[in-house]
C-alpha cells in the first residue's frame, strides 16, 4: 500500500517541526527518513502513523485520506525506539496482542504467532518475558508484534538506535531480508547514514523540517542535491574558496569549473569524499594537489584512514587508503606527501547550515 504525505506542516508551540513536507512512498518500498536530531523525521513518521496530527496537510494510504483517522483505525505496524514491549506479557502474548484485540479465533492466533516467531527466528522463546531477552531479540519481538495483525504499512522509529554495533549490523541485514520476504510498505527513521544506505530502497534526507533530497541510496551518494546532503552523508573533506572565470579556487586547490565563466568571483565550497583523495609520494604534474604532512594513521576495517595536515592552508584532511596502497606507500606519521583529489564537487554560494 503506497503512503503519501502531502504538504504537511506541524508546529510544536512556536517551533515549526515540519515545513510543507511532501513525501511519496511507493507500494512495497522500504524508505529511510534520514536526518540529524531535530530535523523532523520522527514527527513525520508519527504523523504517517497517526500518533500525531498535522496542522496542515493530508496523509493518504493509497487513495484513502487517513489524516483524521486515529492510529487505532489505521492498521499500521509501529515499532518503537525502545520497543515498548508489554513487560508483564510473554513473547507469545506480546505478539498475540494485536490479534486478541481484533478478536481473532484462538487457533488462528496461535498459528499466526508461530508463523511470525519463525519469521523473526525466535521459536522456542514463546514463554520468555521481555526482561529475559537481549536487545536484538526484543527488537525482533517488537517487529513480530507489529507485523502480526497484517498491517497495511510498517513504521519503525530508530529501529537500530539502542543496539550495539555488532547487533546493529546483523539486524540491518536481517531487516532487509525480512522486507524482501514480507514486502509491506515500510518507513524507518534513522540519524545514521549507514543504517539508511545499507537497508533502504529509498532515502529521504531531512533538515530543519524539510526534505532536502529523496532517491535511491546510490543516486543520493553519487549526486547529492546540496552541500548539506553531501556533508551529512559523512566521510567528506570540505574546502572553502571561490569560483571565477571557469576556475574554482578552494583550499589551495585550483580546478576547472566551466559552469561558472563569469568575471565576478562568488564564494564556493568544494567537497571531496575521503576515498576520492589520493596520497602520492612524488609531486604530481598537471593535477591539482596539496602538500601535506601525515599526522595519524589508523586502520578502519577494510581501509586505512590517514589524517594529513596541509600546513600552508591550515587544512586537516582525512584520506581513505586501501590496504594494498598503504603497504606500497609505507606511510608513517611525520612523512611529507602530496594529496590529490580524483573527484571534487563544487557548490557555488555560501553554506548556510551547521550540523
Amino acid at each position, binding site marked *: 500500500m503506497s503512503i503519501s504525505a502531502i504538504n504537511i506542516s506541524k508546529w510544536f508551540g512556536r517551533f515549526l517541526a515540519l515545513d510543507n513536507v511532501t513525501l511519496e512512498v511507493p507500494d512495497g518500498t522500504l524508505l529511510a527518513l534520514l536526518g540529524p536530531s531535530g530535523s523532523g523525521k520522527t514527527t513525520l513518521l508519527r504523523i504517517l*502513523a497517526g*500518533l500525531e496530527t498535522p496542522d496542515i496537510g493530508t496523509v493518504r494510504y493509497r487513495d484513502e485520506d487517513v489524516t483524521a483517522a*486515529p*492510529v*487505532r483505525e489505521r*492498521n*499500521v*505496524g*509501529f515499532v*518503537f525506539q*525502545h520497543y*515498548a*514491549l*508489554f*513487560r*508483564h*506479557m510473554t513473547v507469545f502474548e506480546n505478539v498475540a*496482542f*494485536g490479534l486478541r*484485540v*481484533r478478536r481473532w479465533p484462538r487457533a488462528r492466533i496461535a498459528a499466526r504467532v508461530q508463523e511470525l516467531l519463525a519469521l523473526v527466528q525466535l521459536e522456542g522463546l514463546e514463554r520468555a518475558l521481555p*526482561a529475559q531477552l537481549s536487545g536484538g531479540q526484543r527488537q525482533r519481538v517488537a517487529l513480530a*508484534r*507489529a507485523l502480526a*495483525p497484517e498491517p497495511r504499512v510498517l513504521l519503525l522509529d530508530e529501529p537500530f538506535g539502542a543496539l550495539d554495533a555488532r547487533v546493529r549490523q546483523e539486524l540491518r541485514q536481517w531487516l532487509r531480508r525480512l522486507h524482501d520476504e514480507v514486502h509491506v510498505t515500510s518507513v524507518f527513521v534513522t540519524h545514521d547514514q549507514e543504517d539508511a544506505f545499507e537497508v533502504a530502497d529509498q532515502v529521504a534526507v531531512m533538515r530543519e523540517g524539510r526534505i532536502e533530497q529523496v532517491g535511491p541510496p546510490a543516486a543520493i551518494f553519487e549526486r547529492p542535491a546540496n552541500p548539506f546532503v553531501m556533508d551529512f552523508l559523512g566521510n567528506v573533506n570540505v574546502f572553502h574558496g571561490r569560483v571565477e572565470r571557469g576556475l574554482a579556487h578552494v583550499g589551495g586547490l585550483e580546478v576547472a569549473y566551466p559552469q561558472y565563466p563569469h568575471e565576478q568571483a562568488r564564494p564556493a565550497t568544494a567537497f571531496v569524499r575521503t576515498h576520492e583523495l589520493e596520497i602520492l609520494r612524488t609531486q604530481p604534474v598537471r593535477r591539482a594537489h596539496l602538500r601535506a604532512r601525515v599526522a595519524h594513521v589508523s586502520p578502519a576495517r577494510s581501509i586505512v584512514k590517514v589524517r594529513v595536515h596541509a600546513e600552508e592552508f591550515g587544512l586537516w584532511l582525512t584520506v581513505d587508503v586501501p590496504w594494498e596502497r598503504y603497504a606500497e606507500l609505507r606511510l608513517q606519521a611525520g612523512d611529507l606527501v602530496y594529496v590529490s583529489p580524483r573527484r571534487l564537487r563544487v557548490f557555488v554560494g555560501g553554506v548556510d547550515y551547521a550540523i
Partner: protein
Amino acid sequence: MAERRAHDDPPWVRSLLIAAATAVIAVLIVVPLIDVFVGAFAGGFAAYWSRLTGSPETLAAIRLTAVVAPLAVGLNLVFGIAAAWAIARFRFPGRTLLGAIIDLPFAVSPVVVGLFLMLLFGRQGLFGPWLEAHGVRIVFATPGIVLATAFVTFPVIARELIPLLEAIGPEEEIAAVSLGARGWQVLAHVTLPNVRWGLLFGVILCTARAMGEFGAVYVVSGRIAGKTDTIPLRIEKLFQDYDLPGAFALATLLAGLALLTLLAQAVLRWKVGTEGR
C-alpha cells in the same frame, strides 16, 4: 570543598543517633503495640474471644466497619485509578490543581471533613431538606460514614499509582493503541497489570486507613450504639466506659491489620524488586 559523609562521623556520634532512633521507635510504636496485645489477652484467649463476640454493640461495630471499608475502598479504587491516570498521562489545564485537590484530604483535619459533610447533607445542610423530602438518609447513617471514610482515604491509592505510572511511561499504552486496542482494553491489559503490585498495596493501605478512620466518621455517624459505631468509635466508647480489656480486644483487630499492612508492603516491595520493573 570536602564532602562530609555519614561514615566520617566519629563512632560515638553514630551509636548515639542509632540508639536515639531505636528508642523513639520502641517507645512510640513497639511498646504500645505489645501493650495492646498483652492487655487484650491478659485473661486468656477465651476471655478475649468473649469480649469480641459477647457484646452486640461490638459485633455491630465490626459488621459496620466490614461494610464501610470495602465500599470506601471500592470508591477510591475507581476514582484513584481515574485520577492517577489523568494526572500521569495527560497534560490539561488544571492538572496541577487536580494534584493539589487529591492531596487535600491529607491536609485537612478529618473533623473538618466531617463538618463539611454535615453542612452539605445534614438536616440544616444544603441538600438536607431535599434529602429528607425524598426519604434519603446520609448523615447519622451508613452512606455518610462511607462518604466520610472515602473522602479521608481518597489520596492513598492515587498517590500510590501516580509515581508508578510516571516511572513506567506511556510507551506501552501507545503501542497497545497502535495495535488496535481501545481505551478500556489498554487499561485492563496493559496499564493495570503493569501497576498491579502497587495497586494491591494501595488497596491494602487504603483498607487499613479506612477501617481506622475516626475523626470524620465521629462527626457524621451520630454515634448511635449498635447502629452507627464503627470499630474505632466503639473502641473509644469502651475506653470511656472504663472497659479497658474490651477496648484492647477490639484494638487488636486494627493493630493486627496494621501489622498485616507492614508485611504486605515488605512482600510486595520484594515482589516488585524481583520482577525487575
